[in-house]
């Protein structure tokens, strides 16, 4: 039976697992559907199910469990609507070049890139963001989505090929 020290039914253990994976799960769903509220709902539902089923899931397989639960629910309700993602820019420390023209260009470029990300096909968008923003390795991404590492490589390549042209076009 489950090792009592590592039982997900214990609040301490469950909380640890929650803190480890909830943000990534939230990000993953958000990248897929572009709806913050829905991403939060599904994250909560997935972990709630884990909590209710804590007797039947081992500590080691908890991560796979929540990701697949959330993914499955999303497949049921997600209606392929147009996705608009919003991100906050991380403040940059170096501000060497701050002429108004430069700032305007940067703003245009930023908007173009945000649109570019939102317009990417879902499969490419999700791997690109998990790599660029969550800084996940290909192996981790493969695990999260449930595809092979080679599939991740192909999707990243396609995403980058599309995205890198955006800045080139503006300039």
């Amino acid at each position, binding site marked *: 039976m489950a090792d009592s020290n590592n039982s997900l039914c214990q609040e301490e253990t469950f909380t640890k697992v929650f803190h480890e994976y909830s943000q990534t799960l939230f990000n993953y769903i958000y990248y897929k559907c572009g709806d913050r509220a829905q991403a939060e709902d599904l994250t909560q539902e997935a972990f709630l199910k884990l909590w209710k089923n804590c007797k039947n899931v081992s500590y080691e397989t908890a991560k796979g*469990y929540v990701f697949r639960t959330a993914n499955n629910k999303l497949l049921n309700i997600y209606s392929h609507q147009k996705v608009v993602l919003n991100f906050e820019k991380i403040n940059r420390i170096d501000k060497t070049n701050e002429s108004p023209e430069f700032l305007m260009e940067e703003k245009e470029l930023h908007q173009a890139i945000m649109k570019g990300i939102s317009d990417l096909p879902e499969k490419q968008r999700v791997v690109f963001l998990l790599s660029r*923003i969550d800084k996940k*390795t290909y192996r981790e991404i493969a695990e999260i989505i449930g595809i092979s590492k080679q599939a991740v490589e192909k999707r*990243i390549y396609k995403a*980058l090929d599309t995205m890198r042209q955006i800045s080139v076009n503006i300039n």
Partner: protein
Amino acid sequence: MTNDELLHKWVNNSITEGELEIFRHRPEYLGLTQLYRNTQLQSPELDKQAVLKKILSTPKNINTEQDDHAIHKDMKLKPNKKSSLFYWISAGVAACFLLFTGYQFGQSLGSDNVVSYEIADNQSLEGVMPDESIFVLRNVSKLSYLSSDWEKHRIIDLDGIADFSVKKGSKFSVNTANGIVEVLGTQFTVESKGDVLKVYCKEGKVSVIFFESDTKIILTMNESMEAHKSGRFLISKKDISSFRDVTLTTVISALEKQFKVNFITEGIDLNESLSCNFQHSKLDQALITTLTPLAIKFEVLPNGNVRLFR
């Protein structure tokens, strides 16, 4: 733009200086760096405390001792039997379907799509997946999977040991804490316990990725492997056996089994650690490749035994 190793090394920040020099000269470099400079972003923050509070304040469906007993009765657990899977398949699949539905009623999963099983010591549990792939869970083990969309995504989580007989179809993956085993229709056994992953392929073909390494080992009929988190591994394939960080005893046992000889090893330290491979075609060759690095000499005696000496 080229889809190559350099690109992905750059993406994962594992590119060396020398490689970067080459990469910098690619026409796509400018676009990529601008893209990355303009995607220093963070995703919206999840209010973890609020969500966690809501979850923990929801009452769980905790089964009482009585409920557990009732569930186990439905599952008709049997004492651990060797090679029960393959005998049992010919004996009758119908019994198994009953087993499967019986479990679901007992567990009251409601509209949930996750099916999970867990058993204790000295028990074994046979179950059927929606596509009629079959598994036997053994000893102290847990297994779970999503039953909806099963035909498209056949992924199982396993902690412990189970035998599988998989119908040909889409990729079938067994996820464990120590690695991932993938097949396309075959019979095999996976054991993931502690820091060790063992896989035996009875029929068909499986691929194994262990301990987050980038190595994929393919096993076909009657091949097996055992990998430890420490880096130690043993791989037994049709034509070759590979070892890393094992004792001399382990290698000698494998040689004895493969070539059907006995070794005489007086005066030799069998606990010595080594890494080596040997081919299965010729005993002499195998002895040379395994023993020379340890400066151990050998003599094949008239009766077929092999004497080792220094």
